[in-house]
């Protein structure tokens, strides 16, 4: 609990959270104004939803993952990890204390995105509105299940290999899962006899499944519950793998010791 409090205090002291929160609030208001909304007013609301969630993804990747890496390294290099370990706070408790403090600062950003979509982009049609609410809630859950484990991996990697590796690997994994896998899928479809690529595709994290922005923009409705449950289980399995890797990698003191 002390390490959790210390991490919270550090995040508060860094004050970057103020900028992040302002960006999360302002972006969905300002960016849609660059669309030709004067000629087509129906553009404004989907643009707000798109801006809100794109901004949330960017904050998750640029800020949350970088903070995770920074805390992972500083915990092991500053002597704080050793200090708490000597008191009986083991690696597992330390990594989760750091991780939960970081995730606590991401939650308001997700709430702002959901709030923006519900308050400023809600469809007028009651049936569409209900779907809109569920789509946003599904999106929030899948987003947190994507960024959360990657942040945990970032803490673990950075504690062992430093901030750079702790940031680049989870970010690379996230971008690959969001965009690279789609391209890989297209390549496989064009060259359907390549077993290596198929195998690579099968083990790749399909983070693009967590991005429900197209469903919001094109008002496709929420994910069918059976699909959502499958996605949830899939992301929980990834969480388990990344969580185990992160806790195994996590060090409370620098590698030289």
């Amino acid at each position: 609990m002390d390490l959790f409090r210390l991490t919270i205090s550090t995040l508060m002291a860094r004050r970057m959270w103020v900028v992040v929160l302002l960006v999360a609030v302002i972006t969905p208001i300002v960016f849609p104004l660059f669309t030709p909304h004067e000629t087509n007013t129906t553009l404004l609301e989907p643009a707000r939803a798109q801006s809100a969630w794109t901004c949330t993804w960017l904050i998750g990747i640029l800020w949350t993952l970088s903070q995770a890496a920074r805390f992972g390294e500083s915990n092991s290099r500053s002597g704080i990890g050793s200090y708490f370990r000597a008191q009986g706070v083991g690696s597992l408790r330390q990594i989760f204390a750091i991780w939960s403090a970081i995730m606590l600062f991401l939650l308001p950003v997700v709430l702002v995105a959901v709030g923006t979509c519900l308050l400023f982009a809600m469809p007028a049609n009651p049936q569409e509105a209900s779907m809109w609410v569920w789509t946003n809630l599904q999106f929030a859950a899948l987003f947190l299940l994507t960024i959360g484990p990657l942040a945990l991996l970032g803490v673990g990697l950075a504690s062992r290999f430093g901030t750079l590796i702790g940031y680049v690997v989870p970010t690379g994994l996230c971008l690959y899962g969001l965009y690279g896998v789609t391209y890989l899928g297209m390549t496989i479809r064009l060259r359907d006899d390549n077993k290596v690529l198929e195998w690579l595709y099968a083990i790749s994290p399909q983070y693009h499944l967590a991005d429900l922005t197209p469903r919001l923009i094109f008002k496709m409705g929420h994910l069918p519950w059976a699909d959502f449950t499958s996605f949830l289980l899939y992301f929980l399995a990834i969480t388990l793998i990344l969580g185990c890797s992160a806790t195994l990698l996590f060090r409370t003191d620098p590698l030289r010791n």
Partner: protein
Amino acid sequence: MFIRGERNNLSFKMTPSVSAPPQASVKLSQGLGIGYRSLLAEVTEDIPLENGTHYLLARNGRGKTTLLKTVAGLIRKLSGSFETHGHCQFIGDEFFFDRELKSQAVFRALIPAARREDAFRLADKLELDVGREFGKLSFGNRKKVGLVVAEFRLRENEPNLLFYDEPFTGLDTPAREAISERWKATGDQAVRIVSCHPDFDSMAMPSALLITDGKIFRGGDGNLTWADFKERLN
């Protein structure tokens, strides 16, 4: 009150508490070997340590930090055994906080509210600017933050162990004296093992552990000073 067996197994047993100040203890048994891969030093006699301040003296690279880390349970012993009894804090020679964090925020996060006032008082006595960001503090002042945190995280009515690795590095004489005073006044609350390189001969060392020629042993009869030990280390 907790009784901890050997640090490495981190097991706790409950025993009835007593009204007298809780007695913490460290017992280094003869044959305890410390080091990373190869043996750095070995305990040559049974060394029982009770509440009070015990200085750990050795030249560079002889195993001061390794011994402290071993008894704190941070690294494995190479041979033999030791016992510790009490809530342990290890304050390494590099115990630093985030550059942007102010000392007062560190104290608020880590020191229980009931003791915070006293912590700020000690910080004031040490001339530590608690409103300044950690990154803007001098090396000595950074050390003071760790010292204040450790001192006011001592658990009440529980035995406490404090292992300090070169806490005086970078501290000016008035700050050293203030810390020594504090240790004297609260000597019955914890076992403090302090590794250091004293810089004035008259520094009193009622109890000291020495590491020289790969041997760890106890020195001093209660009335010795740094000048008496210096020769033995050289």
